[in-house]
Structure formats: C-alpha cells, structure tokens
C-alpha cells in the first residue's frame, strides 16, 4: 500500500524562559492511506504534540514530514492552512464548535470554504445520519457534550479528508457516548478511505485499530 504520511526523524523542542524542553525526540512513522492508527501513552508523553506537528499547527525543530510525497515541514503557514482546509480533519477532546454558529453552520462551513455546492443540504444529510436531525439549528451551548462531539466529527469527515486526527475525542464523554463517537469515526473513515490517527487512553479502543503506537518521553517504543 502507498504511504500517505511519513515522519522522518522528527524533533520538537519548546523554548521556555530559561530552559529547553525536548518534547519529541526522533520519531519515525509511516501511515498508509485508509489505515487506522491508535496512539497511546502516558499523559505528558508527547501525543498531542505529535498530532499538532502532523496537522501543521506546530513547526518541527528538525526532521521531515512527508504528506502525499510533499515535504510539508517546509510549507509556509498559509500553505499548511490550505492543506488542512482540503485534506485534514481534526477532532479535539473538548469538541470546540464555533459558539455562535449552529450545528449545521459548523459543518457546512468546511464545505463552503472549499467552494462545494449545496453545502447546507449535504451537511444536513450527514447530521441526520448522525442522529442530529432535530438539532440542526441549535447552537453549541444548546447541545449536550455527546451531541457536540458528533457535530465535531461530522465537521471533520464531511469533506472525506485524506487524514483525520483525533486527540482523545471521547475523553470528556461518558462510556456510552464515547462508544458511539468512536464507532462513527471508524465507520466513516473506512467508508471514505481516510486514514485515522486516534489518540486514546482506552486499550479496548486502541485494539480495534490497524496499528498501535506507544509513545514514551517523546519517542515511539
């Protein structure tokens, strides 16, 4: 299978006032198209940092990130934004919907900025499939945590991105909602042939993935 993403010996350091924190220390990783990868590890081990690097939200200190044969670590901020816009979906632990946009608007925004027609209609259909038919015109503050996260997942997959990044998406949810969310992620990433990188603490969820990577002190073990 052709690899979608390749991390080549990447390092990430944070400079604080008087010290240098090495967060990622030489990670090498290959992820194929359509592949599911679970990322596990203790809190503070560097999982989120890794996700941010892949999303192009953080710059590597050294090393290369190859996405679809392009070295995106050399991209400018605007090029990275464009890449995210078209090819990467992100799901956060704390959902993060735009507060003064309705559920429908939060999802259709992704289609609109990619100039895809019938954005509202397509978004409404997907939210319907997610069991949110009656919630389309609700604002995030009027939705439960589980509902908010379903909207967030709909937002991340509606464009059939090449890559979905999910950082502990069920971390703030009860077990029932948590299961529902993860199933949605698996189902739709498979259906769209999207690769999925899923950070989780839940061993049972990790086991369902094609591959499990464990991070410790900024390194893969």
């Amino acid at each position: 299978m052709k690899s979608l993403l390749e991390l080549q010996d990447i390092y990430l350091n944070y400079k604080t006032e008087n010290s240098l924190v090495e967060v990622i220390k030489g990670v090498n990783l290959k992820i194929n198209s359509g592949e599911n990868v679970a990322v596990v590890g203790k809190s503070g081990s560097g999982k989120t940092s890794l996700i941010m690097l892949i999303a192009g939200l953080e710059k590597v200190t050294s090393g290369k990130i190859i996405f679809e044969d392009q070295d995106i670590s050399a991209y400018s901020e605007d090029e990275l934004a464009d890449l995210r816009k078209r090819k990467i979906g992100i799901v956060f632990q704390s959902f993060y919907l735009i507060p003064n946009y309705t559920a429908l608007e939060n999802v259709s925004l992704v289609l609109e900025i990619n100039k895809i027609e019938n954005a509202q209609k397509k978004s409404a259909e997907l939210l319907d499939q997610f069991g949110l038919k009656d919630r389309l015109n609700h604002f995030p503050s009027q939705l439960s945590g589980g509902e908010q996260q379903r909207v967030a997942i709909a937002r991340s997959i509606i464009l059939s991105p090449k890559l979905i990044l999910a950082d502990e998406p069920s971390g703030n949810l009860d077990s029932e909602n948590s299961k529902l969310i993860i199933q949605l992620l698996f189902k739709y990433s498979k259906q769209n042939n999207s690769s999925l990188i899923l950070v989780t603490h839940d061993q049972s969820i990790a086991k369902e993935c094609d591959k499990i990577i464990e991070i410790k002190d900024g390194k893969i073990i």
Partner: protein
Amino acid sequence: MEKLFNFQDFKYAIRDLTRSYKKISTIIFTLFISLFVLSVILSLEYSLKKELNANAKILLGGDFEINTRNEKVDDQYFKKIEKFGIISSTVEFSTMLTNSTRSDAKTFFIRLKAIDQKYPLYGDVQSFPDKALSLLQTTKNSIVVNRKIFETLKLKVNDTVYIKQTPFKVVGYIESVPDLGRALLFGDFAVVSTNSFLNLNINTLGSFINYEYRVKLNNENINFKQEVENLTKNYPSYSVRYPENSSNNLKKLIDNFSQFLSLVSISAMLIAGIGIANTLISFINQKNISIAIMKSLGFTTSTIKKIFYFEIFTLLTIISLLAYLLAILSVPIVNAYLVKTLGIAVQSEFIIQNFIKVFLSGFLVVSIFCLPTISAIQQIKPTSLFRNVFQPCEFYFTKKNISLIILAIISLILLFAFDSKKPFYTIMYFLVFFIICLTLYGLSKLIIFYLRKINFIKFLPLRLAVKNITNPKTIFPITVLSLGLGVTLLLSLTLIGYNFKKEVQKSIPEIAPDYFFVSIQNTEKDEFVKYLKNNDKNAVIETMPIVSATLTKINKKDPLSYIKQNNDSFWVLERDRRISWSNTPPKDNPITEGNWFDANNKSLQISLDAKVAKDLNIKLNDSLTLKIYGREIEGKVTSLRKVDYRDLSINFVMLINPSFAANIPHEYIATAKFKNLPDFKEGAFLQKFKNISTIKVSDYLGKVTEIINKIFIAVIIISSIAVIIGLTVISSAVIVQARLSVYQNLIFKILGINSSNLILASIIEFLISFLSIIFIAVIFSIGVSYFVIEAIFKLNWSLEIINSSFVLLFIGTVTIILILLNNYKFLSPKVYPLVRNE
C-alpha cells in the same frame, strides 16, 4: 494572491455581525454619535450657504446694487441705469424714535428705512397687517415699526410715535424684511415711505444718510454686467455689487464656525476610536475560540482578518449612512432656531460629497484604531484547542501597521485641512490634539511605572487600587486618555468662552462711556455740552468733529481694482467712513510709525490705523485720495496708529490734520460718562435736541452679549459630546475589566474582603486617574485658551476658577457614578455558579 473581496468572507462577516452586535454596542453608539454630530455640522453649513446663494438676489435686494458710497446718485447716471430695469431707491438713516414728546418718553435708537413703491424688488416683507407696506405709501406720515418696538411700547394700529418730534401714525409692524441690512440683524428699525422721509426735513449735512439703489433687470438674460461696468467707469467713486458678493461676512462667519465645530466633532470621533480599539480587542478575545477553530479548519490569518475588517467597515457604512440621514432629518429642528435668529430658512438634502466626507472621517478614524487591534488575530494559536489554554491577545504593531496608521492620520488631517479656509489652524489643532494624547498616555505609563515600585501599602483598598492600576490588563491608560481628552476640550472651551464674555462685559463699567451721541450739529455743540453739564456736573464728555470721507485712491490707483473682498480691511473701502481731526494724538491710540501732524503744513495729512495700513499695503508717505463732499483731495500718510476698537471710545480709521480740516463743514459725535446715570432722561434730552441720536452703550452691549451667549451654549453642547463619548468609552472599559475580575472578586469574597473595600478601591483608583487627568487638562486648557484668546483674538486672557472647577467636579462626579454602577453587578458575584463552572 487572494482576492480582495470574497463574497463568502463577506457573508461570514455579516453573519457574525448580526449575531454579536450587542457585544460591540459601544462601538456602534460612539461611532454613531460622533458621525451624527459631524453630519449635522456639515449639512447645516452646506444648507446655510446654499440658502444664502439661492437667496442672494433677495438678500442684495436686486440683480445688482449701485454703491454710491453714501451719496445721492448722479441724475444722469440714474437715467442711464434706468434703461436696464426697475430701480428701487431707498434711504437709511440712524435716528431716535420716541412714544411721546414728553420728557419721560420711551426712546429707541433705530435704523430708519425710507422705501419707495417699488420696494422690495425681490422677496417679501412680512408684516402685520399684510397690507402695512401699501398703507405706508397711501397714508400720510405713516410708519411701520419692528415687532419688538411694537410690543415693548404696547402700540396699537393708528397710535402715534415720534421721530425728531415729528408725529408718525403707526400702521402696523414688521416681522422681517428680505434684504438683511447690517443694522437690521439685531437692531431696532422702522420703515417709512420716501415722501414721509422728505417731510422729516433732515437738515444734517447729508453725511450719514445711506442712499441705496437696487436694480431689477427688465431682461434677465442680457449680458448686462459689461455695460453697467462701462457706465460706472465714469463715476470712480461708484461701484456695483452683484448678488454673489452679498452676505460675504455671514458666509465667512459660517465657514469659521463650522470648521471649528467639525474639528471638535473629529476630536470626539478620535476619542471614540480609543473605545473602538478597546472594545474590539475584547471582542476578539471573546472570539478567540472561534478564531482558533477557523484556523484549525484551514482559514488563513489574513482571511480571518479580512472577515473582521468586513465586519467593522460594514458597520461603519451602515452607521455613517444612518447618522447622515438622521442629521438631514434633524436640520429642520435647527432651522426653526435659525429662522428666528438669522431670518434664514434652510432646507436639508442629501449631498453625496458631505456623506463621503462623513464616511471618510469615520473610515480613517476606524482604520487608525483597528489596524493594531485586528492584527492581534495573528497572536491566536489554534494549538490552544489541544491544550485548552487561551492567552488574551494584545495590540499588535508591525512596521506595515505603523506606516498605515501614520498614513491614515495624515489623510485625516488633509481631509479637514483641504476644504478649510484656514488650513494652518486645522493642522495646528490636530498637532495639539496629538500632543495632548501623547502626554496623557505617557503620564499614565509613568504613574503605572512608579506605582509598581511601591511595595508596602497597609491600607487594603489602596493596595487593591494600586494593584488594579499596575495589573497588566489595566484600563488605566484608556481611562486617562479618553476622559483626559474630553475634559481638556471642554475645559479649554469653557475658558475661551469665559474670557470672551468677560472681555465684552468688562468694557462696560471701566472705559466705556454710558452714551454715544451722534449727529450733533456744529451750531448746537456748545449748548449740548452745557446741557449735559447742567444735568450732571461731573459728567465726562468727549466730543469729536466728524465728516464723512471715502477713500477712493491709494497712490492714485482705485483700490477696488486690486484689493479683494476677503481682505480683512475691505470694510474701509466699501463705503464712506467717518473721519475726524485732533491737535494731539488720542491717548489710547499710540503712534507706531511716523510723527503727529505738522501744524504749519496746511495740505492734507492723514494718520491711519496701522492694521488697516498693513492689510491694504499702505506705507508711510503714501498718497491717499479722500472724497469729501464730492471733492477729491489728495493727502499724505504721515503717521500710523494702533487703534483698539474694542474699548468703545471714539476710534477712527483715519484722522486728518486740523490745519487742513478747519474749514470743512462738520458735525460732532460725543460720548458721555455720567456720575449718576439715572439722572439722565433721554426723553427730556430729545425734547431739546431732536436731531441728536442717543445710543445707550449698555443696551448695545447687552445685545452683543446675548449673541455671544447663544454661540457659547452651542459650542459647549457640541463639545460635551466629546465628554459623553469619553464616558461611554470608560464605561465599556470598566465593564470589560470588571468581567475579567469577577473571578478575582470571588476569591476576595471567599477570603473575606467585603465589597465596601472593593468599592473604596474603585473610588481610589478613579481618583488617581482623575487627579492626573486634571493636572494635564488644566495645563493644556490654560495653554490652548491663552493662545486662542491672546494670539488669535488679541484679547486679554485670565484664568477663571469657579466655572472651570464646576466643569471638572461635574465630570468627575458623573464618571465615578458611572464606574460604580458598571462595577456594581460584578462586585458581589454569586459563589456557586462560578465554582461549578470554574
């Protein structure tokens, strides 16, 4: 390269605007008020000038006017002019009107206008009864007085009033006349027919009667100007006035006034800008999650910035349009007042240039303050979404930003300097404004710097106050800046207004005489003085001979051919002037150049007002030609004097040598200051001297003061808006800060610090800001008002404490009340909801 205008982005901007306009209500309010005021000023200026131009013929009274400089027109010339159209000749004359011939008669100093049957050529006379004007022509010895005289004397139609002891039958009263004569603007007047006027048998030397000749063309389209000019060439002392040069002084006044008020309103707008920046940055901070999410979804920073710019400029467009439309609608309200005071009715209309100016001012001010604010979006990191920590962002200055801001400031200054009649003052105004801004801002930073160094304060509220001021998110600089500018502006205007009024009033008790007497005949002069001395032996009486003279040539050239109407001393050439002579220089007219008259030289020597000499470019030893009783005499300028017309004593532009003047027939003018003013009875005086007119100085000054008061009130109202905007800015800043400190207040509450301590702390915090503001505001307003009074108006400045303190106290009280009200709901937060939500 992204497209500059993207409909999609615009849609997001509108969506966001419609959902969060409440959070930016301060922006909406302050922008609206300041744009509204500017719109009102510009619309009024435009409408007034338009009205003056449209009614120019009515105001002039004809298609053209022959200015004979106060001579009766030459008969031959008159016949030639008659071919162009109808001529209306009127005569104006200052005299006394009384309600009886007894010694206790009530008297009025009036302008008497004698009209022929053709008057008015244009416009209407508003009178009661409507046909009063025609009654005037048909009823023998009849008169129409102005409404005020009619009401004050409780006159009825067919009552009798007297002029020079001659009875006139009142046939009605006049509300307004179409040609706004200079004297009619705020003086009393009466109208008689030309025939009745002849019956008055005015036996003065004819020097102070104004003859006016207005012409209404038979055929509007003929190219009459050239012909009239050619005809008039043969009469060098005559000139022709056209409608477009009528009411020039009024236009000048409107220009100056509206320019000044526009500058005040732009200051208000700049103060609003401070609030806009502060509100906008807190708005962006409230939206940081949305912004971070958008960035994570693939929006570039520049796209997000663009959305915010769309938002603010859409808002600006709507607000400026609304403000302008509302201003147009409110012009009729002001109109009612204008009709009363100026007799001019204005109409409002939408003028695209004015709207553009309003919009551009708003655009530039908003740009100045939004550039560093919206650029702060740069600082919002989408990585916060992973870590759940959001740093509030701060004003963001890049080189590009700073140069754009400077460009916007320059454009703003140019926008106002461009169509200003006095660009220098406009630029000065902005310069001073920005210097005050910088000083206030610098002072606030200095205070913060020193307060940070103070460590041990025992008194808890004081400690809290100092903590608040030195806190990194402090609103101290904003408070100092916005309130400081408003207070400085208001205080400066208070001081200017006070000094103005004082200067006018102070001349009454000290130097100014109680009465002016005019038209004293040569033959009755001694008797006149004797009468006054008998009346009050301590009376100080000054008499000066006068004769009417017209300055027709300067160095043998007609000055009207090269001196423009906008020359400050044009009035000297416009009509005849009263000139006098004296053996010694007047004691309050110091000679600045040359020597007093050579008594042995019998040829004409002239001593001229130094300021006029400078304006008209006349030097010592230049030749001036004066026309006296129709004879042109050439003389030499032998001295220049500094003349101060404000002291209301007898002042003359030109004085001539007594050795030359000795044989000229002349009248006298006199001033008198009585020891015991009430002993002087005008009625009794007029019984004896029916040709002499008396002017009571305090009456005259009362009218001037009344007008100055009205102007003063208008100026204060407009400048108060700067303070209101300043207060709004502070309120919103306080709310923003209070919201941030809810959590802190909660902790204080848990720690057992009660809210009275917190209230005391806010009061102390306010006092520290306010005292520093007062310090700066007082210094600058003293400087500014001193400059305006001494340098521009050349008056004497002095400090006024009571009104100034009142202004400061009032603003201070209102501010502290506002601050406490805005703080109050955040002072005692409920513990539970906060603990639960964290």
